[in-house]
């Protein structure tokens, strides 16, 4: 575990269930949307605080993530 949180941006990939429409997808302008058969992948760069805030925004809209990946 890191001792101190660095505000370093990392590449984040979040997968949610269903194919997100542009109308709702525009709630996440900082992320690129990629639609697959039954899921949508949101990807972009964010630091720890921004990622937390993004996940809150997803959950507020009932979009519970299936997976969250953060690259080093």
């Amino acid at each position: 575990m890191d001792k101190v949180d660095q505000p370093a941006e990392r590449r984040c990939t979040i997968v949610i269930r269903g194919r997100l429409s542009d109308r709702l997808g525009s709630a996440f302008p900082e992320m690129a949307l990629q639609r697959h058969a039954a899921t949508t992948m949101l990807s972009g760069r964010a630091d720890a605080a921004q990622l937390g805030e993004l996940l809150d925004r997803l959950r507020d809209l009932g979009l519970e993530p299936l997976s969250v990946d953060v690259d080093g």
Partner: protein
Amino acid sequence: MPRARLVALLTGATEAKLALVQAPVGSGKTTLLAEWHAAAHATCPFAWLSLDRGDNDPVRFLEGVIAALRTVVPRAGEQALVDLAGPASLTDVVLPSLVNDLAAQSQKLVLVLDDYHVIGDPRVHEAVTFVLDHQPATLTLALATRAEPPLPLGRLRVRRELVDVHAEQLRFSDDEATTLLNHTLGFALEAGDVARLQDRTEGWAAGLQLAALSLSGREDRSGFISTFAGDDRPIVDYLGFEVLDGLPPDTREFLLQTSILERLSGPLCDHVSGRDDSAVKLDELERAGLLLLPLDTRREWYRYHHLFAGLLRHELARTNPELVAALHRRASAWYRDAGSVGEAVDHAIAGRDVVAASELITRHWYAELQRGRIETVAGWLDSLGDELVRGQASLCLTKAWIAVNTGRLDEVAGWIRAAERAGADEPVLESGVASLQEIHRYMDGDVERAVEAGRRSVQTGETPWRPVGCPVLGIALFWSGAYTEATAELETATDTARAGGNHLAVIHASGALAAMHAEHGDLEEADAVAQVALRLAHERGLYEHWATTLARVVHGRELERRGLIADAADEIDRGVELSTRGVATLEIAYARLAQADARQLHGDPGGAADAARRARMLIERCAAPGLLSDMLARTERRLHLASRRVLVGDSAPVADELTDRELSVLRLMPTELSQREIGDALFISLNTVKSHARSIYRKLNVDARDEAVEQARAFGLL
């Protein structure tokens, strides 16, 4: 009632300590708790608190808890509320008295804390943990949360004192969905259609509810369900917009405009939306049975379902982004006129209305701080951001005041300079700058410049800032030896503070008056003044405040004179301990000198020498310690210490070994990190850091962080 099985589970929970309802947004957590309430309220009253982010200030959180409890137990927490405004420890003083009040009840009650996931502050979790650890049999806690809270859940589960309701249990079963759709809402759907809806929503409450909204008023229900079942969008993405787009334009506009509100009432919505029929509209929406939850039994305040509020806010930002700030500003104005400062500030900040936010903060920060809400005020300034704060002199001064009162003296001068740069040439702000400088210099042990700044502040006349510095000029005058002027100033300060209800200033000024009488050899009169101050401190929950130091020391010395040596030593030790919670260097040194005398009297010359040595270290750091230099010389002469000072200083041993955890905290002490940041770095709470720091100071025989670093270096620990 479609959730009968869960309500039955919870009704059984009144024997448990905690009912934990944990599930994502839209799972029906609040609705379930409300149904439990409806089923159980005849035998067991409910106290209900819906939390928001502001409750991360432990003082505001506990005020909210007490207010909720009082809807059930009218006089609960009377003493706790008084103590909350002062510096009393939550777990040693405030919570025990609150828990005792509840234990004295004969009737069982349930305390609901809804939306507990908004809490991130470890001190609030510690407070809830304390209640769980000392819970009277008459109380059941119920928490609704999206994420698992950091509470001792494992222990409660092992002891079967916890009833869990999680997302899977909250999903509607086929039977429950049929009951909801066909009986409660009367759609008369065919079994196949219910099954398709169940399959698509997986029994998720919000999904079924949005589906029900889309179905009402529709002819071809079966067709709609088939289209929805075959669509591959997320549920909210499909149904949410389906509902939104199907609303009459008037209703839709009302919903969008009021979506920025955390709580809704008729008058507030009227002000924000510019309508005059909001109360009717809210009533209509509630009657439709969907989207709106009442927050009180009088149907005065409501909130939107969180999920729907999220969707509305997104739609508003998407379709009318420039309106968002304007709506927040209207909400801010309404709350300001209604006297709700916190909400007014929050909406002003959300509306990026810096002028309104700073006006509100400038007018109300001192009253908020006197209620103990230092975190709330600090939070307002943090959300504005340092850059905006630097542009407003009065906000810079508030920052400086908070820094003085949280022991961050190194930041004070910077904020005072920022205030001057921001344009502090009006008399009011000049008075503020002078008052803050006065306090800063005094805390730092420079009585000459404190007096100088204090006089400048007085010259600017009566401004809202003058009471802030009010007792300090008199106290600084006392230390500088100007007794006549000090007496006059302290008496004026006491009268002003008493008239303004500023108890802390009365206590502080009285302590200085008492110390002055003591210096003149009139210990009896001194003690009379000190005791009045201590009684006031006791009544006002300020008994644990460092501002009682002078009064305690004087009272201790009178006890000594009467031969009550042990009691005197206790009182003075307490004075020393409290003094170190503040940052008034001279008062810490004064208490240490009294401690040296008391220990000498008690037959402890080693302890006396140690106390005098610490007093000397503090006094030597002060730019202008005034009388304290003479007092130190007197004490040292009495202890025959002067010549042996160096020897004593070198012989201090490390009383106990430091623990590993203490060593890791100690290693971060030479850094610029605040105690909170040290806690973050080590993944421990602020309180844990503080308690490690206290025991480090004790073991190293020091009073402050920089001394600990110095001492640790001398011992080779760093």
